[in-house]
């Protein structure tokens, strides 16, 4: 799946995650800020990467601000942001 524009999904409410996705520079680059970074940081990055891979995204900048979202929430927000970013600009 190819990204064509910037898009976002989610909120900054507690237990949610705000995800922005945009076309990248030839690879998937992930930036994460999280209130539970110390406890779950690498696991959240891995979840985001696996959603991108599952959708066949190979070129994207994904930046996420996490407020303690569960894994299922992270997956849903990332998928939505990527699909929105894949629409024609």
């Amino acid at each position: 799946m190819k990204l064509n524009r910037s898009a976002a999904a989610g909120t900054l409410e507690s237990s949610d995650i705000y995800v922005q996705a945009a076309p990248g520079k030839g690879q998937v680059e992930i930036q994460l800020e999280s209130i539970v970074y110390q406890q779950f940081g690498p696991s959240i990055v891995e979840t985001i990467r696996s959603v991108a891979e599952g959708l066949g995204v190979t070129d994207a900048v994904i930046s996420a601000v996490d407020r303690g979202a569960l894994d299922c929430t992270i997956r849903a927000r990332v998928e939505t942001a990527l699909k929105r970013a894949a629409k024609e600009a």
Partner: protein
Amino acid sequence: MNKLVSSVKEAVRLSGLKDGMTISFHHHLRNGDFVLNMVLEAAAELGIKDLTVNASSLFEIHAPLVEHIRNGVVTGLETDYMSGTVGRAISEGVLAKPMVFRSHGGRPADIESGQSPIDVAFIAAPTSDNMGNCSGKYGPSACGSLGYAFADAMYAKKVVVITDNLVDYPLHDFSIPEIYVDYVVQVDRIGDPAGIVSGTTRITRDPVGLVMADYAAKVIDASGLLKDGFSFQTGAGGASLAAAKYLKDIMLRKNIKGSYGMGGITGYMVDMLNAGCFQSLLDVQCFDLGAVQSIRENPAHMEVSASHYASPIAKSAAVDSLDVVILGATQIDTDFNVNVHTDSNGYIMGGSGGHSDTAAGAKMAMIIAPLSRARLSIVVDHVLTVSTPGSTVDVLVTQKGIAVNPARGDLREQLVAAGLPVVDIHELKARAEKLTGIPRPLELGDRVVADVRYRDGSIIDHIYQVRS
């Protein structure tokens, strides 16, 4: 005799405040308090250094305290509760020596016993006369009770009353009498009413909070303690207030006449008093306008000192007669130890307040908390900071089940018999981690930034510096 002085700075000068002394403050003006900042600014202008600040609580409005620590005006800090910028700065190590946390009962006990002597106490008084008879019930900055200020007024070597509502002598219905007061200062404003009391504290509309509140009320009903003469304290959090509302419904339906409600008092407790659920309220601090109005107008709504509320060395304190208290937690461990001092990243964001005092005194101490908050289980193997020992905690209520301290087999049987969803606390932890995943352990620094003193004076835990 003239006690009136022209400015806070003049009062500080006349009080004889010198390098290395201890000054004290009470927190009834909460996040609207101007007085602590005013006094420290005056002390800084007078070139005074190396002060210890003993404040019953600190809030975001006290952020300028951090600068006074950086420039050496303040080198020691003692409090019962601390939120916001000051808590973060202490966690990051701004203060060279560890600060001291006490409970709302332990603080006046240590002041009275001489464990923590105070050189100059500053009383923020919403109304005072020129001799220092003062009250929190009247005036543009009315806060209601002045409960935490009594020990300071009675035991400090010098006492300065700061007011923005100076009235003719003698003030009727005073709380703190002139016999303790050395100086009185009139200022434009002692605080911002918007930060002193909430307009109305509201019960939660969050469905998870309402389920917890419903269980909490049913646990109290099933405990055998809910009968005529029942006494009760609850916090001002949304779920705690909802629990009080459900409890009120049960008490009215069963026509139960309780004896007293206690604590930081909200309009919801006032409603219970007025509905006949209690004979009286014992009030150490008012949280909202409904409480302030009630303590001013209703003789059954009584101001109590912090010692009367919760002192472990008083001949008796009101916590000793308490049946049920509902309390919050940032973490609770499988031994029922509770943390209300630090957040999930180790930053100071609270403190015991009356938590450990009421837990120790009440026949049933109930913790009410959601199973997880922001991807972290409320139940952990070991709390980051022990605020209240598990031996004084009886039951944990979450939206996914109720865990009873194994030491309270009798209570467990009562709750099971009432058909409530009782589960082992380890099972609650497992259910939470199934949703959240297993967190990596938090890494903290080696330096102690705070000592947590339990109400009996023993050091119950240390708080360590966070890693930046």
